[in-house]
């Protein structure tokens, strides 16, 4: 035990407490609040573990968008009807988890433990080979920041599919608002009447978020940041603008909205197809243009991520079906 471990231990303890509370707090609203706080602690841990990309993403998502989502849920749902929120299989599940944890601990402490079996043994020949290759290939990727290089070049296929994940979730959300059926239980925010302070603050905050988002996007090729972080900040801006009523409903009937929702995936897929037809193969960027291609993909992706995420968080009947 060294003094340097003190902040880590504090964070760990905090995280466990929050996790416990987020699961078992007697009031559901408390559980939700603790879950949001959990996100903040996780962001701190990412920063401790030298993962600034993740800390940025987690802060925008875990504390921002998830917060709005959960608050929305807390308002829309009545309090739990029954106090016993645990199932009948409680004891069985408890037993299972205790056994699982014990087995895990035994593995941990036993001689042939998790840590001795190669996971943390960086001196053996078991160091990540993929990682070594990735480090070596960064200069050829068209961007300087290794995480961006992995995301948009080496493993671009994953990122393309990830954009589709966002899109499919939105496609699922649209099913919850069958066309022609008006949503009477108005979930559009019924804010306190005097909104002057809030909307004044939003007028300051939203441009700030947009500027920061743009900066993160631009910076992504050489430093932590990138399409996803930028997209989630822009989504946050859109969400607060929409909630304060400064932004009109994003209507699905508008071609521009639909275009910006599919732009990221469509452009990425088009690049993939074009490189397969005219180039060297599916997603093989031509060397000289790879930087340019990556930036343009990122711009379209940011737009799509921002719009899709904000629709996922606050999209209602009038946004999604009109």
């Amino acid at each position: 035990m060294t003094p340097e471990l003190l902040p880590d231990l504090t964070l760990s303890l905090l995280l466990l407490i929050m996790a416990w509370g987020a699961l078992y707090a007697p009031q559901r609203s408390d559980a939700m609040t603790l879950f949001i706080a959990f996100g903040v602690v996780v962001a701190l841990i990412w920063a401790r573990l030298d993962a600034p990309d993740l800390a940025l993403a987690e802060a925008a998502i875990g504390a921002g968008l998830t917060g709005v989502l959960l608050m929305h849920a807390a308002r829309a749902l009545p309090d739990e009807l029954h106090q016993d929120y645990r199932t009948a299989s409680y004891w069985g599940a408890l037993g299972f988890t205790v056994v699982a944890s014990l087995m895990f601990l035994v593995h941990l402490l036993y001689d042939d433990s998790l840590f001795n079996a190669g996971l943390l043994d960086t001196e053996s020949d078991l160091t990540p080979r993929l990682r070594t290759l990735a480090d070596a290939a960064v200069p050829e990727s068209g961007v300087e920041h290794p995480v961006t290089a992995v995301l948009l070049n080496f493993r671009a296929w994953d990122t393309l599919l990830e954009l589709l994940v966002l899109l499919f979730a939105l496609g699922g959300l649209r099913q919850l608002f069958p066309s022609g059926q008006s949503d009477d239980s108005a979930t559009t925010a019924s804010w306190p009447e005097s909104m002057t302070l809030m909307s004044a603050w939003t007028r300051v905050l939203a441009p700030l978020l947009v500027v920061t988002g743009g900066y993160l996007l631009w910076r992504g090729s050489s430093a932590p940041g990138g399409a996803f972080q930028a997209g989630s900040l822009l989504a946050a801006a859109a969400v607060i603008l929409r909630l304060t009523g400064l932004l009109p409903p994003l209507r699905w009937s508008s071609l521009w909205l639909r275009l910006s929702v599919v732009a990221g995936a469509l452009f990425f897929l088009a690049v993939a197809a074009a490189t397969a037809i005219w180039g060297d193969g599916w997603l093989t960027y031509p060397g000289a243009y790879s930087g340019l291609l990556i930036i343009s993909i990122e711009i379209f992706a940011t737009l799509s991520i921002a719009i899709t995420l904000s629709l996922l968080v606050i999209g209602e009947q009038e946004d999604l079906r009109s």
Partner: protein
Amino acid sequence: MINTITDVLGWSFMLAGSAFFVTAALGLLRFPDLYSRLHAVTKTDTLGLGLLALGLALLDPSWRSCLILLLVWMLVMASGAVNCQLLARFNLEQEEGRHGGDGHQTGESDDA
């Protein structure tokens, strides 16, 4: 010599800031209703964070970090104020709805 003075000052500011956070937490736990809790949290948070930022700026006195710390403090202060007001008003309206328009605990609601 300068270094030690700024160090001592910086650390003491940070300690003071932390003390404010502790009192805020105490207030959050001990105060009876939402308004006094909000009062405890926002006021002390604003001041506590300011002291922490000041202390940190003294410990790392480059222009860049000072500017960033100032920005952080101002953003948190502004959003804290707005949030406090929103929460208080929301609660007030709900109470008015419940008690038939007779809000009776309005004392602290506009302290932001």
